[in-house]
Every structure is written in structure tokens, then in C-alpha cells.
């Protein structure tokens, strides 16, 4: 059985996928993961998960470009220019 190994290098850092080991069960996977990803004290924490338990998602559908909840849905340059013209002002220092 293949077990995926996730490791955390230091406290505060996210767990990241590090690799995989082949083992007959969780007890062996524990030993083998700890050896391959921790024998030099290079990890503070490991998560091991049977590969079959991992649900993989790699397709994300956005056919209608739903940008109302993203920063790129808010191009304000033109509106700002018009508003400043109307108020007879120029851009303050530090503003785009």
C-alpha cells in the first residue's frame, strides 16, 4: 500500500506533501515515513495517509468568469480619473 507523507518543517509552517512510502500497514508506514522524512530532525510533524484515502480535485469550473468576488473584478482607474476631473483635484501622493 502507498502512503502519502505530509511534513511540517517548523511550528507555524503549513504541512506540505513530501513524498510517499510503500508499507503493509499504518505501523510500518509510521516507521518508514519517520525515517525518510525525519531521521535528521528535519520535520516537527508528519501526517501519513493511505493514498486511497486521498480525494484528488484538479478541475475547477468558472465558465461565466465570476469576478465579482475577486480583486480583478474591480478596475477603478477610469472612474477615479473622472471623479478627480470633476472635483478639480489630482491624485494624492502615494495613490495610483
Amino acid at each position, binding site marked *: *500500500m502507498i502512503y502519502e507523507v505530509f511534513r511540517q518543517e517548523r511550528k507555524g509552517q503549513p504541512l506540505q506533501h513530501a513524498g510517499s512510502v*510503500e*508499507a503493509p500497514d499504518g505501523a510500518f508506514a509510521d516507521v518508514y515515513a519517520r525515517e*525518510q522524512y525525519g531521521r535528521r530532525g528535519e520535520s516537527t510533524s508528519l501526517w501519513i495517509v493511505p493514498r486511497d484515502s486521498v480525494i484528488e480535485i484538479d478541475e475547477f469550473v468558472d465558465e461565466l468568469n465570476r469576478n465579482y468576488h475577486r480583486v480583478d473584478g474591480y478596475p477603478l482607474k477610469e472612474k477615479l480619473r473622472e471623479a478627480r476631473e470633476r472635483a478639480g483635484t489630482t491624485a494624492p501622493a502615494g495613490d495610483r
Partner: protein
Amino acid sequence: MSEREQAFLEYVQSGGQVETADWMPDDYRSKLVKFIEMHGNSELMGVLPEREWILRAPTLQRKLALTAKVQDEVGHSQLIYRVVEDLGKPREQCLDDLISGKAKFHNVFHYPTKTWGDVGVIAWLVDAAAIISQKALLKCSYAPYARIMKKICWEESFHILHGRDVVLTLMNGTDAQRELVQEALDRWWGPLMQFHGNPIPKDDDPMYVWRIKSQGNEEARQQFLDGYAPQIWELGLTVPDPKLRKSDEGVWEYTEPDWDELRSVVTGHGPKSQDRLDLRRKARENSAWVRKVVLAQAA
């Protein structure tokens, strides 16, 4: 080349990376598997020349360091074979092909280790030559392989230091100890110069074209000489090539390596090729029952 393959080629040549489940041209996949498999085989076979010296290490510190170094190499083969398996070729099949001679491993692991001097020279110079190639693989277009290369390079960092430490201690020691280093270097120089392969132009090398390798063979060899010829000479050691020098243009010149020897060795005719494959085969046969008990039960 089909349109799809052409697009893929442009993608990898502009730095694009490929994951396991992505579509890839058949040629890319087969060259990739062969390349990575050879690397895995090399790490596994590389263990054998050094193993004997674990038992003869002259201090507890050296014993520990050498055991840890060889352990790392086994660990690397595990990482690499996992990548190959995820590309579709199971580990057992890789080992079958290695033992039968169908698959290859790097030239340096076909030669004998004769003294403690070899232990130092191998860890210092052979590992250095390997690391140059490995650093270039950090940019491999196939992402899972690039990722394990990061771990491999990080672990290799102590190997070279250990090697240099062994060599420096010998060079600062008795005349007999100094002689061990020179004698070993004289024997290893030829294989070292052949290690990076013959100077095929980058653009004629499919490995480079597909961006599996990001460096040509000659580039790697020049890098090796740049880094290590000075380190060798500063210890008062000599290299058995009177032509070795850096030209005014900054290019290293040397006697043409024996490419026939490389070809012959890599196809299983090296001095220790068959002995070592035999050892692998016997160890594997002897422990087949263990794998059956441990892995079959889980199936």
C-alpha cells in the same frame, strides 16, 4: 510531431512543468522513465562499492558517517523508484531489469574500491560530480522528479563534506595515508572524466530538448573541473592527465576520455559489474519471502 506534441515541447522549453496525471507525449514519457530509472538504479548500485568499507571504518565517527551516507543513497533510490512507479513502471520490474542487465546504472559504480583512500575520493569527488548533475535536475520539466531532487541535493550536502574531511585527514597524516589518496585518485580520474557522458551538443540531446536535463554533458564536466581541479591541486595531489589546464578563454582542456571504456562499462562489462549484479540478485532472492509475507498480506 503532432500539434499537441509541439505545444507540449514549447511548454516545457519555456519552463512549464508537468505533473503525473498530465498528458505527455509517448516519447517524453518513455525517455523520462528510462532516465529516472537509471538514476534509481545508480543510487542502489552505488551503495555496493561503499558498503564493504562500512565494516572497516577506522573510527566510530567515520563508521557512523559512512553508514549514514550509504543509508541516504538507499533512501534516494526509494524516492526515485516511487516516482518511476507513479509513471507506470513498478519497482519490482525496475529491479528485474537492473539485475538482468536490461537497464543501466552509472559508470562509476562498476569499478572496485580498493582502499580507505577510495572511500575519501568517492565521497569527495564522485559525489561532487553527481551533485552537479543533480542540481541541474532541480529544474526538470517533470515536477515530481524535480521535487525529490530538492531533498536529494539537501541530503548530499554532508556527503561531500564527509569526503573532504576524510581526504584532508589523510593528507595531513602519514606518508602512507597520503599515498592512499593519490593512488585512489589515479584510479578514479578516468571514470570521473567519463561520468558526465560524451560531449553531445545540448540541442541534439533528447534529455535536454525535453528539459528533463537542464544542462548539457560538457557544461557539467566543465563545472566539475572548475570546482574541483583547484581543490585537488591545492592539496599537492596530481591528476593523471598532463593536458589538464584551464585555457585563457576559461575553458578546461583535457585528454579526450575513453568513450569506448564508458560504453563497455555501462553495458555491464566493468570490472565489478557482474559481481555486484550477482550480489543484488542473491540478496533479492534470499529476501523474496519477506516481501511476499509483508506486502502480499496487505494486498
